[in-house]
């Protein structure tokens, strides 16, 4: 198998395949990702958390958390695994040989899988919008209305999870490797504490202060710039995409450059978001 993988290295000729196949393929991949049981489970769990919050612990603090980072757990986590499984399905089934000789290059397939992560992202945006409308209709008490950047951070984490799942499938083609990536993400997420605002470097970043029981009471917000936090998350999404594309594309320098650029942006935004 190693022999074959080496021999089918893509070159520039492979990129002369039909570009018009990309949107069709991306739509198909998005449908696969959205219909994956783990993605469905993620949305179901988010709906469940909305219902339980509304039913039991309603109050300014949990309501604000729910609408900003509520999507990261579990929807984001599950979308990461779903994307990894969908992107690696043909390899795990032993179907790479059949698909590998079709005119659409592997690079194009990877691009389609990355674009497909927009599927769950858009649905997450829609869910977020519906939740906002629900808050308005039921006049849910909030300490202050969330900014558009704070609202975006949940769907952006879902987007990043999907794209990183594809990158993980391309670079780490071993059973269980996605688990290791998730462990690394969790470890990274616990970087810095909330008092210093450095928790914003993670993905599951709590914005309101929890304080003592009853947690639902309003206690103000952790320090840090949430506008830059959204830019930071977006840069990480783009970086994951560049990483995925770098694997097979013959345009190595292009994707290395794009990756370096997003890394610089992530570092700048990551630094700017800290208090």
């Amino acid at each position, binding site marked *: 198998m190693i*022999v*074959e993988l080496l*021999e*089918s290295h893509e070159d520039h*000729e*492979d990129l*002369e*395949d*039909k570009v*018009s*196949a990309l949107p*069709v*393929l991306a739509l*198909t991949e998005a449908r696969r990702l959205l219909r994956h049981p783990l993605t469905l489970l993620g949305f179901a769990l988010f709906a469940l958390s909305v219902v339980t919050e509304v039913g039991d612990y309603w109050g300014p603090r949990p309501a604000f958390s729910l609408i900003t980072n509520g999507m990261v757990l579990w929807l984001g986590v599950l979308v990461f695994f779903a994307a990894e499984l969908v992107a690696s*399905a*043909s390899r795990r*089934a*032993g*179907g*790479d*040989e*059949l*698909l*590998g*000789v*079709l*005119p*659409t290059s592997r690079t194009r*397939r990877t691009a389609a899988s990355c674009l497909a992560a927009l599927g769950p992202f858009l649905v997450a945006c829609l869910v977020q919008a519906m939740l906002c409308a629900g808050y308005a209709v039921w006049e849910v008490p909030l300490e202050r209305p969330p900014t558009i950047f704070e609202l975006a951070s949940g769907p952006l984490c879902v987007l990043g999870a999907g794209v990183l799942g594809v990158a993980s499938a391309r670079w780490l083609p071993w059973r269980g490797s996605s688990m290791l990536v998730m462990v690394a993400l969790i470890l990274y997420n616990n970087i810095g504490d909330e008092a210093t605002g450095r928790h914003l470097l993670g993905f599951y970043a709590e914005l309101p202060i929890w304080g003592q029981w009853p947690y639902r009471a309003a206690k103000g917000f952790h320090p840090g710039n949430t506008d830059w936090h959204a830019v930071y998350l977006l840069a990480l999404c783009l970086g994951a995409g560049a990483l995925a594309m770098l694997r097979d594309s013959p345009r190595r320098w292009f994707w290395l450059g794009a990756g370096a650029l997003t890394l610089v942006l992530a570092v700048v935004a990551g630094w700017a978001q800290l208090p």
Partner: protein
Amino acid sequence: MNTVVVTNVVKSYGRYRALDGLSFTTGPGVTGLLGPNGAGKTTLIRMLATVLTVDSGTLRLLGRDPSAERLPIRRRLGYLPQEPGFHRSFTVFEFVDYVAILKELTDRRERHDEVRRVIAEVGLAAVSGKRIRALSGGMRRRVGIAQALLGEPELVLLDEPTAGLDPEQRLRFRDLISRIGENRTVLLATHQTEDVAALCGRVVVLDQGRCAFEGTPEELRRVAEGQVWLSPERSGMLSWRTGEGLFRNIGGAPAAARLVEPTIEDGYLLLLGDAAVGVGS
């Protein structure tokens, strides 16, 4: 016109030479590829399908060199690997449709028509909404044949397409492939000499990575002409007991033997001698 030209091709896996200076040519029509296990059939088909590259020697497919012009060849190719490996959660329709998209059939209506056509060709229309993991082995094989026929490819490579098909489906397959072979090049690797007899205009026999025979099925049959005997006793290695209790012997005449008409299988067995029955090297 020769659509497949193989000249002195060598392919090694590590130190082992799977193809050892193989040469043959073929054109439109159905060509059968016979040979014992490990003869190099799959290795050859993989090279023709642009999965593998040659170590030395040259290949020309549809008038092009696959090492320089891979994509134009891939656009005109239909390929069924020996072990296709399907995404098992896809339905039959979804899988063939997915392959059709990767074959650059972007117009939705045209693509769906084409997908339905090939699914019907292999007789799977009734199960096209079923998940592939719920299909029998023979049905899965037919899904593999269906995807290879998408877009009417000019070069069709099938690695053991009839393995696991029931007799009715084999018949159907022969009819389908012989129709395709009227104006396109079909190469099929197989162990079924009856398929070769029924379907192929040419046959190539591989043995230890070399071409042991190249000709028509009739010529292969005639290799054993005058050397197939029915007798009450076994003689030599190429001999087996038939249903009527007599022994069918290939080679020299045993005692009290009756000469019978050879089949392609007899020719093939005689040609390969010991290699065919698994002794010798």
